[in-house]
């Protein structure tokens, strides 16, 4: 990447237009709001990672007493709550989605800019409530808050934590609502639905899930909280209630929530792969329909979290079948990404390294999901480390890799400068190696019978746990590197120019960083996306 100095800009970018703190905290600019979110969720990521580090440290020895069992319970709850609601669910939508969505469709901003800023403040309030719950002692129910433990017996700060998640949910809804209306109403002339970049399709589908699923989480937490406060509630078996009703309501949200976490990652993948293979995406319409199918089918499978909960076996069979169905569009996407790379003109830049890592790890995660969707097999694997490995392969091996890859890919657009390629490539490989060392042994541990959420274990599982904990050290190094070189490059990296990757897409047709109003004049779209010249 050259460090050529471009001609002096005739207008300031969104970064330089105003520089007071007030101008940042009161901004309506989607690009600044994206950075506000970036800053906030990075903080939560570090917190969740520290909890994970303590857990892996404890688990390095079979009967360690680094922390008490009660503390360990609070650690894995903290890790789950923070990573799911305060890092992963916001990550790509609020950072990359906020920054890129208006740019990609040729708009000046989102549909409701003030609501966008409000969504960040709401998120911060929710986050502060969760932080307070953690600081005053935490919660030991697990991020799933199952009743009757959470509503009747738990002795942690369940109410405050639930309140923090409840509030953060409104931020999610506001963001999703904003994006949906933006995509419907603010596309530039000529930007028909089937000319949209797949990242936009992905953000749109994610937003639909956010809007339709999150309210159910809200009512679920409210009902659990009421039962806790009033000492009686609709999940209470003593009055004929069913604790399983909580699980139905909880998972009706939380399963689609995992698609909130992976669909944007899939959108990022399509952008990166097309650029670094210099090729049109293979099967664009099928890719778009797969995104919609995943979003829709994702609402029909929640019972696969409840196979051994005393849910009816017949319902289990139905949910198992539907869970198999939902894997099909995901698999189609993987095949199409490979089809895009095939005979492409490949550049192994860092974003593509992350994308290749995603392909490998998401595939493993997805295939192991089929094991878990198989009712009879899940009876043995439920609540073991197999489940943990499965979802970490998808959410971390897939979601986080795509998020970091996307940050690198669009870093020149966001900051106007390039990150250091060699450090970045090294970090990407370190993360990939560290991730596999950490989580692959966990498949084996789960298969061998090690339960999840246990802080001690039989000695026969020692070796695999040691490998996993050492892998976590490597993974941590990999994650720490961008935390150093990215901020450094923000201020001191070589200038990038409007389109350092020579990619297609409207976001690359404007300066880096973009001016506050995005485009000098509204672009007019006349062709399909990923319009790379034939090779």
């Amino acid at each position, binding site marked *: 990447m050259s460090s050529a100095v471009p001609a002096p800009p005739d207008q300031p970018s969104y970064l330089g237009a105003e520089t007071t703190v007030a101008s940042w905290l009161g901004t309506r600019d989607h690009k600044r709001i994206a950075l506000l979110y970036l800053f906030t969720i990075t903080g939560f990521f570090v917190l969740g990672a520290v909890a994970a580090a303590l857990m892996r440290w404890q688990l390095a020895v079979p009967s360690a007493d680094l922390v008490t069992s009660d503390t360990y319970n609070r650690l894995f709850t903290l890790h789950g709550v923070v990573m799911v609601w305060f890092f992963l669910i916001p990550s790509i939508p609020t950072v990359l989605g906020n920054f890129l969505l208006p740019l990609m469709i040729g708009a000046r901003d989102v549909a409701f800019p003030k609501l966008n800023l409000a969504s960040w403040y709401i998120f911060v309030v929710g986050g502060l409530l969760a932080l307070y719950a953690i600081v005053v002692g935490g919660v030991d129910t697990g991020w799933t808050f199952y009743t009757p433990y959470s509503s009747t017996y738990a002795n942690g700060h369940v109410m405050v934590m639930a309140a923090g998640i409840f509030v953060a949910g409104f931020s999610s809804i506001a963001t999703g609502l904003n994006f949906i209306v933006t995509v419907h109403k603010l596309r530039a002339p000529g930007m028909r639905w089937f000319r949209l970049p797949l990242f936009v399709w992905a953000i749109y589908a994610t937003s639909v899930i956010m809007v*339709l699923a999150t309210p159910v989480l809200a009512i679920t937490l409210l009902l659990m909280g009421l039962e806790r406060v009033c000492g009686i509630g609709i999940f209470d078996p003593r009055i004929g209630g069913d604790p399983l009703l909580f699980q139905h309501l909880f998972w009706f949200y939380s399963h689609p929530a995992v698609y909130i976490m992976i669909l944007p990652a899939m959108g990022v993948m399509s952008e990166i792969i097309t650029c670094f293979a210099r090729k049109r995406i293979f099967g664009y319409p099928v890719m778009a329909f797969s995104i919609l199918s995943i979003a829709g089918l994702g609402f029909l499978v929640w019972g696969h979290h409840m196979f051994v909960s005393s849910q009816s076996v017949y*319902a289990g069979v139905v949910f198992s079948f539907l869970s198999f169905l939902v894997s099909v569009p995901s698999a189609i996407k993987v095949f199409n990404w490979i089809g895009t790379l095939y005979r492409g003109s490949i550049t192994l830049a860092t974003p593509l390294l992350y994308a290749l890592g995603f392909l490998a790890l998401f595939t493993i995660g997805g295939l192991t999901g089929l094991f878990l969707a198989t009712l009879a097999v899940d009876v043995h694997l439920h609540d073991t480390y197999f489940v943990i490995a499965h979802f970490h392969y998808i959410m971390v091996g897939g979601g986080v890799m795509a998020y970091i890859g996307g940050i690198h890919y669009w870093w020149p657009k966001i900051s106007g400068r390039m990150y250091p390629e060699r450090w970045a490539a090294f970090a990407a490989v370190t993360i990939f190696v560290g991730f596999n060392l950490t989580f692959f042994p966990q498949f084996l541990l789960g298969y061998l019978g090690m339960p999840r959420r246990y802080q001690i274990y039989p000695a026969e599982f020692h070796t695999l746990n040691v490998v996993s904990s050492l892998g976590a050290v490597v993974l941590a190094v990999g994650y720490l590197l961008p935390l150093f070189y990215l901020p450094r490059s923000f201020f001191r990296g070589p200038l990038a120019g409007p389109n350092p990757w020579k990619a297609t897409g409207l976001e690359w047709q404007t300066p880096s960083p973009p001016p506050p109003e995005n485009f000098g004049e509204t672009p007019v779209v006349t062709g399909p996306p990923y319009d790379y010249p034939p090779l």
Partner: protein
Amino acid sequence: MPESAATFRRLYTTFGALIGLLVVTAAVSSLPSGWWSTPLSLLIATAKAALIFTIFMRLRDQPALVRIFALVGFFWLAIMLTLAAADYFTRFWPA
């Protein structure tokens, strides 16, 4: 959309229909009940809601996209009710 006397007339008529449906549903509830009682009262409630949606909330004048947004929530609620019922109604089956 310029408002005319017809608009106001329509609003009053709709209100009359709503009250009429309320009277019907209240009266029916005092009759001896049967398998049809609950479906009927839900049907009447749906009719009331449809009137409120189309006339008071002006859905009849809105573009198709707005109407889709209005109805999608009910569709998703139906998914929730149906699949959850699949558990509860088959737990002790066959009895």
